[in-house]
Every structure is written in structure tokens, then in C-alpha cells.
């Protein structure tokens, strides 16, 4: 395999958690709720997967538990932001801090113990002989396939169905949606919970495909990169796919360059994804300075029916 193919494979495997988390973020923010707890949710997802997988040895049970636990966190976030109309920024921050603390606390006994297996791969023997596609798609994780499928499903859901129309209406103008008989609170609750569960799966994928053991603070801020990717992807699942692959490539590029024997200290190579995130967002801000950014218009604004205007 040549360097480019290897990089592509690494980009997809490093990009999958980012993609899942970005899709989760898109669902949240399309419904008008800011989700800054992504990093904490990913950590909780990762630690739940580790604990349940090590205890029961059943991967699917572990993934189910991950979805359940992070959905509870999503419920908490939506209760705070939708029902209580609390500050969404602070609620997300609290979720990040609490998630990293709780995951470290719960994960202490399983820290450093390797998992019984990594993410199961789907073998497609008929694809293998094709030069570039074969090595990439021939042996991909189930979770990666799931994330690719989700890109398509969510794209169709958001842009082609009446459910998606309702979702966009709630995110852009909840008062109008309310008048039209759409249940704003119900929609916000369900998408925030679904989004949180997706972000939790991102954490699970991270621990399964990336580092098959639990370590404290395992995500190294990738949840925050996903928060940036939601903006980079302009709240669009199809764009999210490309953005996540791009960042996955950046993430693994540093490691690949190191393997080639470069003399640049590894610390600088590890900085690349963080610095590029800032630069990309600055470029987007500059390019779109006179254009609508695609932000859901009611993002971060709690909806109060009694104050309709």
C-alpha cells in the first residue's frame, strides 16, 4: 500500500468519531440547542463502552449501554435548556466538566486494561482486488459503515422529509413552528437526546477503533473539534462527511510524518489539528462575512411561548 492509501485509511478511521460527533451536533443545533458538552459526552460514551464490554464481553450490549447513558445526559441537557431555559453555553460546559470527572472516576478500575476485541470489521471479499477502493472499503468497521449510512439518512431526513422541515422550523423560528401546531418542546427534546446518543457512539468508536483501552481524558479535545466541525460543515450532514475526513487526515498526518522519520518534534505535529481548526474557522468567517452563515436562526435562544413576538 502506498502512502496516500494508508493515509486515506487512517483518515477514515480517525474521522469516524469526528463524523459521528459532528452529526450529533448537527441534530442538536438544527433544533436550536447549542451542544458544547460533546467532549464530556464522548468521554462518557467511551468509558461506558469500556466498562460494559469488559464486564459482559458483549460488544453490542456495550454499545446499547453507551447509547442509553449518553441519552440520559442528553435528557438532562434538554431539561436544562428547553424546560428550564437555562444558559445553554454553561449547561454544555457543565456537561463537559462533569463528564470528564465522572468518566475518570468510573473508569479508574478499568484504566489501562485492554478490551477483549476491537471494532468488528465488515469483510467484503469482492471489493478487495480493486486497487484503491479495496483496501479502504473492503475491511471497514461496522461503526464506520453506520456513520456513512447516517450521513445519507440524516441528509434525506433534514432536507427531504416533513420531519426535517419541522426540525428546521423549530431551529429557525420556534414561534412560527408553534403556531403551525408543531410541538416545539417535544422536537427539541427528541433531537437533543438523539444527538447526545450519537456523540456517545462517537466516544465508543474512539475507544474501539483508535485505542482499545480506557485512559483518562482519552478524547484529547476531539469533542471540541467536532463542535467546530458543525460550524465548518454549515449544519449539513453531507459536508460533515468531507470535513470529518479532512480532519481525520490531519489527525493522522502527524503520526504518518513521524513514521517517515521527520526531524520535526512530534509536539508540533500534534498541534496541527487544533491550529487548523482555528484557521479554517477564521477563513470561513472571513469568506462568509457578508453572507448568512447557515446558522439555525434561533440557535441558543430559549423559546418561551408566553413571549411570542
Amino acid at each position, binding site marked *: 500500500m502506498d502512502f496516500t492509501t494508508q493515509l486515506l485509511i487512517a483518515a477514515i478511521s480517525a474521522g469516524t468519531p469526528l463524523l459521528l460527533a459532528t452529526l450529533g451536533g448537527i441534530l442538536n443545533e438544527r433544533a436550536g440547542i447549542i451542544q458544547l458538552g460533546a467532549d464530556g459526552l464522548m468521554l462518557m460514551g467511551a468509558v461506558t463502552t469500556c466498562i460494559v464490554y469488559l464486564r459482559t464481553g458483549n460488544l453490542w450490549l456495550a454499545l446499547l449501554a453507551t447509547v442509553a447513558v449518553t441519552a440520559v445526559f442528553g435528557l438532562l441537557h434538554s431539561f436544562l435548556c428547553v424546560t428550564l431555559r437555562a444558559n445553554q453555553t454553561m449547561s454544555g460546559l457543565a456537561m463537559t466538566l462533569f463528564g470528564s470527572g465522572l468518566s475518570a472516576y468510573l473508569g479508574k478500575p478499568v484504566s489501562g486494561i485492554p478490551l477483549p476485541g476491537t471494532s468488528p470489521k465488515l469483510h467484503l471479499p469482492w471489493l478487495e482486488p480493486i486497487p484503491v477502493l479495496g483496501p479502504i472499503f473492503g475491511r471497514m468497521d461496522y461503526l464506520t459503515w453506520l456513520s456513512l449510512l447516517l450521513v445519507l439518512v440524516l441528509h434525506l431526513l433534514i432536507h427531504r422529509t416533513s420531519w426535517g422541515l419541522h426540525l428546521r422550523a423549530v431551529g429557525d423560528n420556534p414561534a412560527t413552528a408553534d403556531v403551525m401546531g408543531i410541538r416545539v418542546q417535544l422536537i427539541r427534546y427528541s433531537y437533543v437526546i438523539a444527538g447526545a446518543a450519537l456523540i456517545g457512539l462517537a466516544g465508543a468508536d474512539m475507544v474501539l477503533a483508535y485505542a482499545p483501552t480506557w485512559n483518562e481524558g482519552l478524547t484529547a479535545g476531539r469533542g471540541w473539534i467536532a463542535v467546530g466541525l458543525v460550524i465548518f460543515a454549515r449544519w449539513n450532514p453531507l459536508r460533515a462527511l468531507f470535513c470529518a475526513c479532512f480532519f481525520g487526515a490531519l489527525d493522522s498526518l502527524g503520526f504518518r510524518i513521524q513514521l517517515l522519520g521527520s526531524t520535526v518534534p512530534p509536539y508540533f505535529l500534534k*498541534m496541527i489539528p487544533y491550529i487548523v481548526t482555528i484557521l479554517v474557522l477564521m477563513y470561513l*468567517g472571513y469568506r462568509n462575512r457578508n453572507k448568512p452563515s447557515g446558522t439555525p436562526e434561533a440557535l441558543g435562544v430559549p423559546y418561551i411561548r408566553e413571549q411570542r413576538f
Partner: protein
Amino acid sequence: MSLENRSNAAVSRPAPPGKSVWRMSYRLEYDSSRARSPWWTPILSVVLALVLCAIFIAANGMSPITVYERMFRGAFGTAYGFTETMVKAIPLLLCGLGIAVAYRISVWNIGAEGQLTVGAMAATAVTIYCPGLSSFWSILLMLLLGIAAGALWGLMTAVPRTHFGVNELITSLMLNYVALLALDYVVFGPWKDPKGFNFPGSPMFTAAQSLPVLGSTRLHIGLVFGLVAVLIYFLMIRFTRWGYELKLMGANPAAARYAGIHIKRHIIIVMLISGGLAGVAGMAEVSGVTHKLMQGISPGYGYTAIIVAWLAKLNPLGLILTSVLFGGLIVGGYSVQTIGLPSSISEMLQGSILFFLIAGEMIHRFRIRRSV
């Protein structure tokens, strides 16, 4: 609360006349005019967070009361524990003050961790490149460079926000990771102590490069920096035009813009102050506590300071109280390690305090009404 205060709240409609009033129902009413939460919400949220974490401790097979008692005794029970608490409270106070300044105008700086780290690095640079200075000059230079480095890191968050419309939360967090990686680079690479047995870290500071301490304790003069900064901030908010504009922007950003307040300039100034204060904290930490630059110079002070600031309701005087409380929480977290609990329990407590706090800020706006 009088009726005219609730003018824009939902006013309950009287039951239509002539209808039977036997059916009763309860409903939640939201009153947005009750913007100030009562003084006891922070206390209540701390208590509720303790109860929540007690469940997790009990699930781990320990008695929560024993654990909390040990945490409290470790943090405040002995003279040594108390001075340690104060030592931890210094960076929390400085970072928390910087965060409070920024949050007052809704600039969500979560980069205090990185700003603290670069402040510590800048202070260490003085000890590496100008080793022979006298005590006064080296401390002064370390302080100034620490402020400058922290402020520069804050500026790197502010300019993308003001000129490119980039969310400062993302920028400041990304810069935290950049700062920590830069710290790794210098302690493993160019600044590594040649006599340090290959252990990552800079050479020990000399006595001239260390902050004076109180007696035989580890409590250093950084406490005075923190208190002076609180006092200056308090006076500036009270008596200057800048403080007035800051308050106006916090209370009503739209009104502030129409009043011609230069919001971009304020964001930049506020981030310079915020970063500079975190830089002082970093300088005080290397020069007053660890006496050398090393990995893990901050056990998450920058993040804890966010909760410290929010718990104090961004009030500078309240900050003194909450930073001591959270300093105690960190020290208490260390002291339960001896009975086999991970110290991340204090992190967990911090997160849940924030949860209950933001919920508590809103919950008093609701009231249960009986509609007949």
C-alpha cells in the same frame, strides 16, 4: 412581588364567570422578570451536588459521610491543610477573576488553562535566558512577561472573535491544547534540566527567582497579587466609565450597541485582562509553588476557575470565598486518595455543582399556580 413587576409575565386569566370551579389544575408559570436568583441558590447547589456525588461514592462501596469528612478535614482541618488550600486558591482566584471579567460581557473564555500555561512558560524563560538578575528585577521581569504571554494568548482568542466571527469557546479551547503541547516540547526538549536524571522539567529556580513565602509554609506572595487584582477590579467596576460600559453590555448588549459602545474594542480589552490575569497565575505557580517548569503544572485550574467564577455570580468579592472553597475541594480530593478513591471525585463534584447552579438560577423563575 408586586403586580406591575410582573407586567410582561404570563398573567393568569380569571375563570370565566358562571362556570363550575370544582375542577382544579396546577400549571407551571414562567416569570422572566425575576432575573436575580436569591442568595441561597449557590449554597443549595453545592449541597445538592454533594448529595448527587454521595450516590456515586456509595455505589463504589464507601460511606459518603466518611469520605466527605476526610475531604473536609484534609482541606480545612489542619494548619498545613489550610495553607495548602490557600495555595490552590491563588491560581483559582486569579483565573476566576479573569474569567469573571470576560463572562460579564458574555465572552466565554475557557482558555484560562492555556493562558496560565504560557504565563508559566514565559516566567521560566526569564530564569533560563537571564539567570543572573537580582531578586527584584527577575521577579518583576517574570511577572511582566507572564502577563504579556497570557494576554497574547487571550488576544489570539479575541481577534478571531471580533474580526472573523469565530466562536471564542472553540478558539480558546484549541489554544489550551496548543499551549500544553508547547509546554511538553520545552520540558522534554530545549529547557530540560541537564542534571535532572532525564526527568522532564526545567532546572530548579534559584532563591532570587522564587516568590517570597510566609514563614515555613508554601503560602506565597501570589495571594497578595490576587487580592490586589480583586480590589482593582472592584474599584474599576464601581467607579470608572469602563466599568459602567462593561455592566451595560452585560445587562443589555443591544442597548449598549445603540449607545455607541465600541463592543469589539471591549472584547479585546477584556480578553487581554482575562489572559493577563491567568498569566500571573501561571507565573505565581512556577515561581511560588513548584519552583520549576514541568508537566501538569496546573491540575485543571483553568477549568475549575470557570465554576469558581460562576458560583460567585461573577462578583469579585464572592470570588475570594469560592476560590478558597474550591481550593479546599482540590486538596480534599487529594486527601481521599489515601483511602483508595480517585481524586477525580473533586472534578466530578465541580461539574455537578455547575449543573445545579445553572438549574437553580432558572428554577426560581417558575412557580406552580393553581388555576381554577
